[in-house]
């Protein structure tokens, strides 16, 4: 079981200043929402994979992300295609369903955008140690407690996944049948798991709060920090490169009409 989302390492992406990474993610997200062509979106997702691999994130870990993602992506794609017919001639029309190349491509753009956003966030989460994560948010002007809350929430994502697995095993051992067909019967079957999980989670949250307080969290308003964020020369160059590249791509997109339509280049 995973202990946290962070993958320790010493790659270029790990060493990049947490604030520069935050900028990279912000610019990346701007691009992801700006471009509208299925080809560009696919290229963006591929580029993200390549960069994460180059930062020492294993295929196994990327596979884990895909395993969670593809269900949602498939669902989004199907819904989009079913409800938005798209423009141009339909090459299949059946009952109320009209399939056009434009509609399919739009569905694919939305589904791929989901993956692109997820991996963009993982740039930051997979390669930034918790302390640096909190420090970079603090640098943005957020209160320390907010940053810590976010870091702790992230830290508990895998724990909650593990808790879900154990509770579901415990209820199945008492004869709970999860193989129901039909969405309502299925949802009902998950009630005993969800409630047991919630109670456990609240218990954990309470003891975590107590643990923080007994260690005098919040006692002093002006915190000093043992670790600092340092901007190295390469971080500065990266910042310049990120800003220029984003500006150029956004110019191409909005002034030159690059990658504006689902099937265009």
């Amino acid at each position: 079981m995973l202990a946290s989302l962070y993958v320790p390492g010493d790659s270029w992406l790990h060493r990049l200043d947490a604030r520069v990474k935050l900028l990279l993610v912000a610019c990346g997200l701007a691009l992801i929402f700006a471009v509208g062509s299925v080809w560009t979106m696919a290229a963006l997702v591929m580029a993200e994979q390549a960069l994460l691999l180059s930062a020492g994130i294993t295929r196994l870990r990327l596979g884990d992300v895909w395993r969670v993602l593809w269900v949602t992506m498939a669902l989004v794609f199907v819904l989009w295609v079913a409800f938005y017919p798209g423009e141009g001639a339909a090459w299949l029309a059946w009952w109320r369903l009209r399939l056009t190349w434009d509609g399919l491509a739009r569905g694919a753009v939305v589904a791929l955008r989901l993956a692109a956003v997820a991996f963009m966030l993982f740039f930051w989460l997979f390669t930034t140690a918790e302390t640096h994560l909190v420090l970079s948010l603090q640098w943005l002007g957020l209160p320390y407690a907010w940053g810590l809350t976010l870091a702790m929430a992230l830290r508990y994502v895998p724990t909650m996944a593990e808790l879900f697995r154990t509770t579901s095993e415990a209820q199945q051992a008492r004869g709970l049948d999860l193989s129901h067909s039909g969405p309502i019967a299925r949802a009902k079957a998950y009630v005993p798991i969800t409630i047991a999980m919630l109670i456990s989670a609240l218990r954990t949250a309470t003891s975590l709060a107590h643990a923080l307080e007994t260690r005098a969290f919040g006692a002093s308003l002006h915190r000093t920090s043992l670790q600092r964020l340092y901007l190295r020369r390469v971080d500065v160059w990266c910042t310049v490169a990120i800003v220029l590249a984003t500006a150029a791509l956004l110019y191409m997109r909005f002034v030159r009409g690059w990658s504006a339509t689902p099937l265009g280049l």
Partner: protein
Amino acid sequence: MAELAARFRGVHYHYPGVPALEGVDFELRAGEFCALVGQNGSGKSTLAKHLNGLLKPVSGFVEVFGRDTRSQAVGELARKVGYVFQNPDHQIFSARVRDELAFGPRNLRLPHDEVERRVDEALDGFGLRAYADMPPATLGFGLRRLVSVAAVFAMRPSLFVLDEPTAELDWRSAHELLDHFRELHQQGHTILLISHDMELVAEYAERVLLMQAGRIVADAPPGAFFGQTARLREAHLSPPQVMRLAQRLGDLGMPPETLTVDAFADAFARLWREAHHAG
């Protein structure tokens, strides 16, 4: 009587990237009170989850009461195998203790009055009558533990798998809990107890299995088991203190297989009287 509660043959299991069982062979005879010990991570829980089908072997097979677990759903196996999880909070979800105990029997699709009968029996059997209408989540840890055990008891399984049921319990509660299972054992139930507490193992079990790195490396009655000093040291275990004391006093005539304080006192009194008569 040679009826088998469970049979493991060449069982291998691995979690993604982590081997957990590496060839487990053993038989659990019906009616046995068997303990399973070993270091953290040696594979005890993994083995136990094969008994109620939560895990299925990657190779080899597991038979429970003569049927291969691969052909049965967890829900089906729950009729015969009761699994008490290490943490009671992983299963408690009802608004009243009574409903918590009824959850299992209802899942077995028993008629209403049979469910009621079993709930009443479990409430009385585990001294929970006074708490029947209280929300179980607000009870203390010891009581939550009892609720989770009573909930499994209400399903009337023939085999009980207990995964560290006494962890975090005080001495008295631990003994009271295991006394319930000793009674069930005397009524013919099969018990597999996972524990890190060698005192309890020596006191309650009639057979001890030792796991190390995914294999069963020792299998003996407690007396003989705790006599294997070298093997125990290798597994970072040590016999109950009273037994170590008896082993030290071996040359004075103390039987080295003395497992409990009571047995030690009896043997000591006998030796004392003999010495008195002689001297």
